[in-house]
């Protein structure tokens, strides 16, 4: 078994172990990484930042357990941003599975803010500052229905209250009272918001997506249909950076903490591809 043979037949289990180690070490000994913010994330941040106080922001939580680690940091970041700017927030999901994660993200951020707030005005009150609309089936039915009347689609909210009794819903009839919708999704659901809600009602749409579907989104970002785009853990880390530098919100940077592990994992995978190809070409020349 000379070196080349050993090089080309590394056991799969060893590769798994190497990857796990390479990820765990930077988690145990964290080294903060300087994040450089690129245009697509900055555009989304500015779009959220410039929402007028008489308009609302809809956050569409569409990530599920399978993609929670990657997209949840974006959800937490946008929620912290909106509540810091006292922007009115509506939260909803088009599928059932994301509901639980939308609720846990909301509970976490609202809990954080209300724990620090002293008086009523600067704490986040359900029904006044935000409403958790929950879920209605039919996918296109809520997307199109909210263009005419949100309370007609979501007659009851997640908790079962009648939505037309909530103060925030009285001033947020439909997309005309919504300045931006940010869709945090695992598949190409944000493209449906553009194809159906933006085309018919002129709704401004931003997106935060898993890196897996990055390729599908850039054509719609380049054509201006998306007013901003966060992609994968890096996108979340960039938004967290903007929260810190622009609004000095210094909460735990869930996305930022993973960047050194991602760096070492990427280097490992690149190395594996190189080794694999070196072995492959040497063997091919021998044959």
């Amino acid at each position, binding site marked *: 078994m000379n070196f080349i043979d050993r090089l080309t037949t590394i056991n799969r289990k060893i590769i798994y172990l190497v990857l796990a180690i390479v990820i765990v070490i930077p988690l145990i000994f964290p080294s903060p990484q300087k994040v450089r913010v690129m245009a697509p994330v900055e555009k989304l941040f500015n779009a959220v930042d410039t929402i007028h106080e008489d308009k609302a922001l809809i956050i569409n939580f569409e990530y599920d357990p399978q993609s929670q680690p990657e997209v949840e940091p974006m959800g937490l970041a946008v929620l912290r941003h909106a509540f810091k700017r006292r922007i009115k927030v509506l939260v909803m999901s088009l599928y059932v599975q994301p509901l639980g994660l939308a609720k846990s993200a909301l509970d976490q951020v609202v809990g954080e803010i209300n724990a620090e707030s002293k008086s009523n005005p600067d704490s986040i009150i359900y029904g006044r500052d935000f409403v958790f609309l929950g879920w209605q089936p039919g996918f296109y039915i809520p997307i199109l229905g909210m263009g005419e009347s949100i309370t007609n689609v979501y007659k009851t909210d997640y908790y079962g209250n009648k939505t037309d009794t909530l103060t925030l819903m009285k001033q947020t009839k439909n997309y005309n009272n919504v300045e931006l919708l940010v869709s945090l999704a695992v598949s190409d659901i944000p493209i449906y918001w553009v194809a159906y809600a933006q085309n018919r009602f002129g709704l401004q749409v931003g997106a935060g997506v898993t890196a*897996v*579907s990055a*390729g*599908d989104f850039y054509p719609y970002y380049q054509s201006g249909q998306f007013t901003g785009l966060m992609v994968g853990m890096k996108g979340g880390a960039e938004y967290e950076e903007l929260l810190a530098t622009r609004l000095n919100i210094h909460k735990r940077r869930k996305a930022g903490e993973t960047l050194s592990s991602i760096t070492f994992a990427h280097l490992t995978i690149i190395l594996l591809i190189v080794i694999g190809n070196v072995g492959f070409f040497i063997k091919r020349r021998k044959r």
Partner: protein
Amino acid sequence: MLLNFLLLTVGIAPPTGVRAYDAPDDGGGVIIMEWQLSSDDAILDGYEIYRSGNAQDFEKVGYVGKGTNSIEDETEDGKKYYYKVTALKDTLRAYSEISLPAMSSAQWINRTKLNVLLAMLILGSIILYFVFGARKGKQLFIRKIAGLQAIDDAVGRATEMGKPILYTTGLESISVISTIASLNILGEVAKKVASYNAKLINPHFDPIVYTVAREIVKEAYNTVGRPDAFDEGSVYFITDTQFAYAAAVDGIMVREKPATNFLIGYFYAESLIIAETGASTGAIQISGTDAIPQLPFLVTACDYTLIGEELYAASAYISREPLLLGAIKGEDIGKLIIGSLLIIGSILGLITKFPVLNFFK
């Protein structure tokens, strides 16, 4: 201080050019109010909007900050409304003249969507022309997809080596286009397998697709005139859970050592597991899918990959099925239209001042 003194004596300039009109292309109930900003706009607090039904008694209906020169007012259709705007600075007000009356109404056609209507009619009629043409037996030419040659060579290689051929139709149901395309190609591969007396292994994820595939392979053996050689065990259903299917197919690759693997259909993340084991056994691998997220991995792990529409074209080429052929020919013409729109639109946009982009907003 001096500024306030001046204001008190001279007063502020009123907004001018007040105009009210029914909002176009909408369901009615909205009047748009526009005006030229007051020359003192910079120091103003904002503008108040007044409305009246009879041009006498006005009531305030809106307020906007300075620098804004229009507002949308919700109104009742069919009623006349007069408007005027006041520039506001603390308690000082400067009224504009009264606008001509306006009435909101609903429209039956949204003119901003005429480009979509036009595109729908043109592209739709072209596609239908070819689909109906193909059904009437019109001969339609499609080039031989390079991938089909790769398929023939791969089947030939396996039969020379006397090793089996593995074929998987992906993880989607019978109603998905790429599954149907994969079944068409399976029929072609099965004919070659039957004529060369090679061994086919066809494990399935979806029970309905399994039943259809079994008929196709059996039919292939009949058309080649060797109905008795059809092996019942070559087409079978394994499991309907994603990773269990991938693990089972890996097991077959390692045990049976097929010389050629076909991964054609719709795949999810498990395609990586299957393609990896196939590559490590040294088999020739041909993949074909319209699952865009999986294509990058299949391109690097397989010897040949049919990308998206190439899979549809390959299945149309093989099956000569009128609906498929007609659709692909119609779509080809659609691509010609898109190409020419891009070229002509760009030329117009560059040379003339013609607002080309408005057609594509």
